[in-house]
């Protein structure tokens, strides 16, 4: 009969839900409990007195043998787990599935008796449960991650890659084992930005910031990615999962768009330049149109002046023939006055029609209007009374003087055309203060101080409907062919451009006032390049020699006569070859005065040829063409000047002195 002790021991061992094997000092089985019998399908009887190696032949149990040996000899306890041992005992569950187990080996008795206990712990259930839970939790996640078009990688706190989804592997060209375990930093060219991503996530800062990264694919090409990262923990270990969105396509589109924008800017610039060019042309044609409008009046006026000249000369001729020399002076003076008026008139006309760039400058409007008075008076004719009312202490304004002249001229012409039967045209200047109330009632005008220029006629006037449209481009009340309708719109544009305003006051049958308000300019006026006044006579220094080249005999003689009177030695040539003959000689020539337009060699060609032997030759060109004057800037080299015909003799003398003394 077994003792109570024996029974309980054996029953207890058999009742334990785990494998119990007791080995003797030779590592042979002396106990093998029921659990072991069932799991191994080997009975205790079969197992007894055999070593584990005998019981489980062909199974690599090095760790287990070592553990048994250690327990028997040095009383060491050992754990052998399924975690790091690829195979342990060939045990099966009731359903004949592999049984996952850990084994502990511990000494069970004190020396000299040596026994050890091998305990097999079934972890199948626990592991299954864990895996089942995990799989259930992860199923959805796995499905998303595996099929995500985005690259998804999980790294630990140091950036070592723990996981990379299939998109990451395929897009970067790596195999999973290449990536897992390496530091993600190595993937990126933009290491600093990667560090920002990682640190941002580790510090768990809220609001997933997107950071652009550049990754290197396995083949060496770059890939642009946008990263968002988030921190998560498993137990006590932190991980960061980074989602990398492929933005290569987006970048390409951005690039293309940027390029398009750049060329768009260029295209806009080109267009703007073109428009400005056209505006420039338009301004010029406006001017020419104004000139055209003027021409009738001018021709008439010019005839009068010529009449004064020829009449005077006629009288002189008669008197001389009659031998009556008294009072000659009076007729000559009369003719000269007419001639100088004619000269002033053409001069203004030419100056006006000259192409000039827009150049706003600080300006006193009064002298500008004063200089236009003669032109205007003659243009308007005798049936129109012209009054210029100039305000004392007028403020300065800043605008382009040519544009202002143009505007005034246009207004004057409009006024004249509105008074076919004659009337009064008044041009008036005044300082004006536009208050806030006024500004509030008018669009696009600020309260402040302005210089006001009013042009008033006593003509037919305009209806309110006409006034409303008067500033619109191409609106005209004139018959076809008599105006483009751009005059008033141009005036309005000019006033606006200058920071001012234009306004029409009119009543049918009573007349019209157009007011231009130009903003007050606080500062000094910029002096205009004035035509030299007829004042001092500049005489020649000793023996200074001037060569005059002019095909027009009368003009040449006239210039030579003046030069002689001023004390210069003079030489004459009627064309290029004659001039070059002199210039090629040793003859002293201090200054060459030459017409530009000559038959054969022109003025410039003469100078070019002469300067081969006389590089320092000083030159004064004469020209009757305004266009020539306009291109002078590119035409003239150092030591060359130009004077526009007609010119007063004393203006010529002044220029000669300036050139020679320079």
């Amino acid at each position, binding site marked *: 009969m077994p003792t109570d002790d024996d029974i309980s021991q054996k029953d207890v061992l058999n009742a334990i839900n785990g494998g119990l094997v007791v080995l003797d000092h030779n590592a042979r089985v002396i106990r093998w409990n029921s659990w072991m019998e069932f799991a191994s399908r080997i009975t205790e009887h079969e197992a007894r007195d055999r070593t584990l190696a005998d019981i489980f032949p062909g199974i690599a149990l090095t760790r287990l043998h*070592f553990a048994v040996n250690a327990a028997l000899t040095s*009383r060491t306890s050992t*754990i052998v787990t399924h*975690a790091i041992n690829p195979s342990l005992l060939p045990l099966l569950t009731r359903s004949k599935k592999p049984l996952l187990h850990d084994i502990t080996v*511990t000494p069970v008795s004190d020396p000299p008796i040596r026994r050890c206990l091998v305990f097999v712990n079934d972890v199948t259930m626990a592991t299954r449960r864990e895996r089942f839970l995990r799989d259930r939790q992860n199923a959805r996640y796995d499905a998303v991650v595996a099929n995500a078009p985005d690259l998804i990688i999980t790294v630990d706190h140091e950036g070592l890659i*723990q996981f990379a989804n299939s998109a990451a592997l395929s897009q970067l060209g790596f195999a999973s084992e290449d990536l897992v375990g390496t530091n993600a930093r190595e993937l990126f060219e933009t290491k600093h930005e990667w560090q920002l991503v990682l640190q941002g996530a580790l510090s768990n800062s809220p609001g997933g910031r997107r950071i652009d990264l550049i990754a290197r694919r396995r083949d060496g090409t770059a890939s642009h990615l946008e990263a968002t990262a988030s921190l998560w923990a498993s137990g*006590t*270990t932190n991980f960061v999962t980074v989602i990398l969105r492929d933005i290569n396509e987006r970048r390409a589109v951005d690039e293309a768009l940027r390029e398009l924008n750049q060329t768009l800017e260029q295209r806009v610039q080109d267009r703007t330049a073109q428009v400005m060019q056209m505006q420039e042309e338009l301004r010029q044609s406006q001017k020419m149109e104004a000139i055209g409008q003027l021409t009738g009046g001018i021709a008439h006026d010019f005839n009068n002046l010529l009449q004064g000249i020829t009449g005077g000369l006629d009288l002189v001729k008669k008197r001389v023939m009659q031998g009556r020399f008294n009072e000659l002076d009076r007729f000559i003076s009369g003719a000269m006055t007419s001639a100088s008026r004619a000269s002033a008139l053409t001069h203004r006309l030419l100056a006006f029609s000259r192409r000039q760039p827009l150049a706003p400058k600080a300006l006193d409007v009064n002298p500008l209007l004063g200089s236009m008075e003669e032109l205007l008076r003659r243009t308007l004719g005798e049936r129109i009374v012209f009054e210029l009312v100039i305000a004392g202490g007028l403020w300065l304004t800043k605008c382009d003087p040519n544009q202002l002249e143009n505007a005034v001229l246009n207004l004057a012409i409009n006024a004249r055309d509105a008074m076919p039967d004659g009337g009064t045209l008044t041009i008036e200047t005044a300082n004006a203060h536009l208050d806030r109330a006024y500004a509030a009632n008018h669009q696009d005008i600020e309260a402040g101080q302005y210089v006001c220029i009013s042009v008033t006629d006593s003509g037919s006037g305009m209806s309110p409907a006409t006034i409303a449209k008067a500033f619109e481009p191409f609106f005209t009340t004139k018959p076809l062919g008599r105006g483009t309708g751009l005059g008033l719109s141009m005036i309005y544009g000019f006033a606006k451009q200058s920071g001012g305003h234009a306004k029409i006051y009119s009543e049918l049958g009573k007349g019209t006032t157009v007011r231009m308000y130009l903003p007050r300019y606080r500062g000094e006026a910029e002096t205009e390049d004035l035509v030299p006044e007829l004042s001092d006579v500049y005489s020649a220094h000793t023996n200074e020699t001037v060569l005059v080249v002019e095909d027009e005999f009368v003009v040449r003689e006239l210039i030579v006569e003046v030069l002689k009177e001023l004390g210069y030695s003079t030489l004459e040539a009627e064309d290029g070859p004659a001039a070059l003959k002199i210039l090629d000689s040793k003859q002293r020539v201090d200054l060459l005065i030459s017409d530009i337009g000559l038959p054969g060699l022109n003025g410039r060609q003469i100078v070019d040829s002469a300067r081969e032997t006389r590089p320092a030759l000083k030159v004064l060109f004469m020209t009757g063409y305004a266009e020539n004057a306009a291109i002078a800037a590119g035409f003239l080299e150092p030591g060359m000047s130009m004077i526009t015909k007609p010119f007063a003799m004393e203006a010529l003398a002044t220029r000669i002195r300036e050139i020679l003394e320079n």
Partner: protein
Amino acid sequence: MTVPERVVLSEMELDALTELVNLGVSNAAASMRELVKEEIILSVPKVTIVTRDEAIRNLGERDAKRLVAVHQDFEGDIAGRALLIFPETKSLELVRAIVGSDLSLEDIIELEQEALAETGNIILNACLSTLANNFKRTLKISLPEVLHGAGSEFFYVKPPPQIDDTVLFSFINFSVRERNITGYIAMLLDLPSFATLKSLLAALIESTRSHTAAPDAD
């Protein structure tokens, strides 16, 4: 903290101890190599003798507060507790180094505790049995337990420690699968055990010396 009657190891005794521990970990490395089928190198640069508080301070200063430890108690002529300690952040890396990187992150997390327990068990067993064998003594060594926490918690596990406990403290370097992981190995001994250790070391040195100096003797 001043320790009354503090036992001090001589330079030579300390060298001998360092050598024995290294011998132990290299045995452990051999076992693991067989297991992992990868080159594994374990080394212990230098064993130092510190108080428990110094050991705790060393752990606290060098690394993050959160640590993971595998500890085993041992008894016999020398009694105490052996610990293998890592910063918690290194533990997965260590497990991956041992089980290989073909496993998924989830699998590794799942295996972490058992793998750590067994790895610590291999190393600590090897160290302790190497010491015991060389001293020709027997140590009864318990099964391992994995602890997570701060250094102070590992060193104040019950039974309540003695005020004059001594710690044999060292770094341990793992080199496996191109990874280098540094942890700590510590052995907490009470004063009588430490005194015994000193005398055993002295005896070992003496016997080695008599063997090498006088080969004809004995």
